[in-house]
């Protein structure tokens, strides 16, 4: 099982950083997102919005990385919000209950307005 990478764009939006993965978030590529969130924590970036608009497919590994990111950022005194309009991902958030307690909105700006921590 070869480890693959997904390109992740990082944009500084002032009070928060935006991570935009470009590609599938699955068991093979999820390490990139985990590393990017780790870098945010290392750089003491408190708040991060992950924009899933360029992610056509996400499985439980990708969801797990987002969930782990929420927990790690909150432990570091920050938070993670999600910008997503893709039906499939929203369905996954709903099924697993991940959407509860996390800011999920159609746009980055809206998601950033509703940081919970």
């Amino acid at each position: 099982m070869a480890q693959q990478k997904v390109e992740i764009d990082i944009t500084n939006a002032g009070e928060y950083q935006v991570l935009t993965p470009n590609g599938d978030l699955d068991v093979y590529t999820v390490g990139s997102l985990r590393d990017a969130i780790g870098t945010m924590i290392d750089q003491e970036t408190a708040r991060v919005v992950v924009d899933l608009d360029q992610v056509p497919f996400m499985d439980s590994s990708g969801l797990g990385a987002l969930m782990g990111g929420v927990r790690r950022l909150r432990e570091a005194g920050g938070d993670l919000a999600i910008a997503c309009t893709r039906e499939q991902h929203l369905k996954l958030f709903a099924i697993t209950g991940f959407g509860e307690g996390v800011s999920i909105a159609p746009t980055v700006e809206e998601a950033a307005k509703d940081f919970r921590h």
Partner: protein
Amino acid sequence: MRLSLRWKIVGGFGLLLALIAVLGWVTLSLFGSLRSVQRKVFDEAIPALVAVDEIVLGYTAQSAAVRGALVSSNQTHLATYGREVEQTDFWEEQASGLFELAEEQAIFDRLVEAGHDFQDLVDTEVIPRATSGKRTQAFSILSSQGDVLIGQVEVQGELLQRSQQDRVMQSEAEAQSRTRSAILILLLVVIGALALGTFLAWVLPRRLAVNISKLVEVTRAIGRGDFDQDVQIRSGDEVEELATRFGEMQAGLKRLQQLALQDRELEIAASIQQNLLQRTLPATPGVRILPLQRQANLVGGDWYDVEVADDKLTLVIGDASGKGIGAALMSTVALSFLRAERALGSDMRRIVERTNEALLDATDPGSFTTLIYTTLDLNNGEARWLNMGHPAPFLLRANRGNSGVPRGAYVEGPRNRALGWFQEPGYAEAVTILEPGDCLLFFTDGWLEGKATNGEVFGEQRFAEAVMRLAPVGASEIGERLVEEVEQFAAGKLDDDLTMLVIEYLGTAIPGGSVQVQTGEQEWHSRR
């Protein structure tokens, strides 16, 4: 400096050729030196010796010829005298320039001077007196003055010859000495060349042999499975290159060994998981349970559990996030806690609660488990379940109603959150009454996430349509047929596990709690 073996061999031969050339040069130099000595002896000393001898003899012969002429008055003697003078002149000319030493030249000059004085005496004093009849006077002059001059010639000649002989002897001694030196030097050069050649022939291949022996040792150790060999060789040639490749090969083998060990561990994990999952299903009167599991890897995160106690059937289907060993371990944790808590007689909610607590403690923040914990009352077909973040089950009704078209739907019910993530995931129950012949399909997300080459996922809609379309094949086959559908959609490339529990409710309870058994196949056939 990097030097290939080829150039080392060429260099070795070059060195050998250079040694031979030096040997030749030394030999030629020594013979040249001997030749110079020989030239001095044969080109100078011996000719000078001969010439001096001839000159002295010439003057003696001149004296004898003149004396003969005075005694016999014969003209022949005078002619002889003339020839001897010419001969002597010739030899004097030959001898001139052959004397290197000034001392020898002075002696020669004195000899010639005495000789010429003799000739003057003969020409001016002796012969005129003889021809004028004064033979006695002439004879007297020749005997008194001429013999003195001839005596001087002989003395000087003797001196010169002695000197020349000394030189020849010296030269011979010098030649012998030089010959001895030449032989000695040649001997030393030959011994030196041999020693150097032997040294190089010993040292260079020895180093090569030592390096190759080292590689042989390394190969043996690698053959024994020891992949921590030091294969550093700094010879700058192909052997160093070979050693570098050996190092890479060793690292590769080590990685392969580690992978093999990992595979072995994976096999052990798989065996443990199989033992946990695929235990023999309990006898279930009134219901058919058809499990199906298609794992993408050796171990996976999907699992199920079935138990019958009294008239209650417990069914659990679970899916740990991620894949591989991590997911397998998490599924083992969930399954173990579920069973342990159930063995204590806890109710459904308590069992799931305890499992959540265990997963919260045992797993990392990025991991979670979804499951549906179901109990089915075999007496009345009442199914109750807790859906913890899992895809909703699909209910295929046996009763097609008036239209005769299969009826089916996802049973959404209340949803709770996945386990291992929240302290309070929620424990709202869903309830459904199964009629005889109804099939309830529990499945994991791998079915919905089957991905086509264009990136499109199989999804709930296609899954539902496929179930409805395949409903007539019956409960025992529907799972396998669905696998075919998903595999075809994903062009044979399924990354996730596919797990499904098809529950076919066969019977209705009769008073007293026993179950009237019917077979599902007959049910489906009768309805076609």
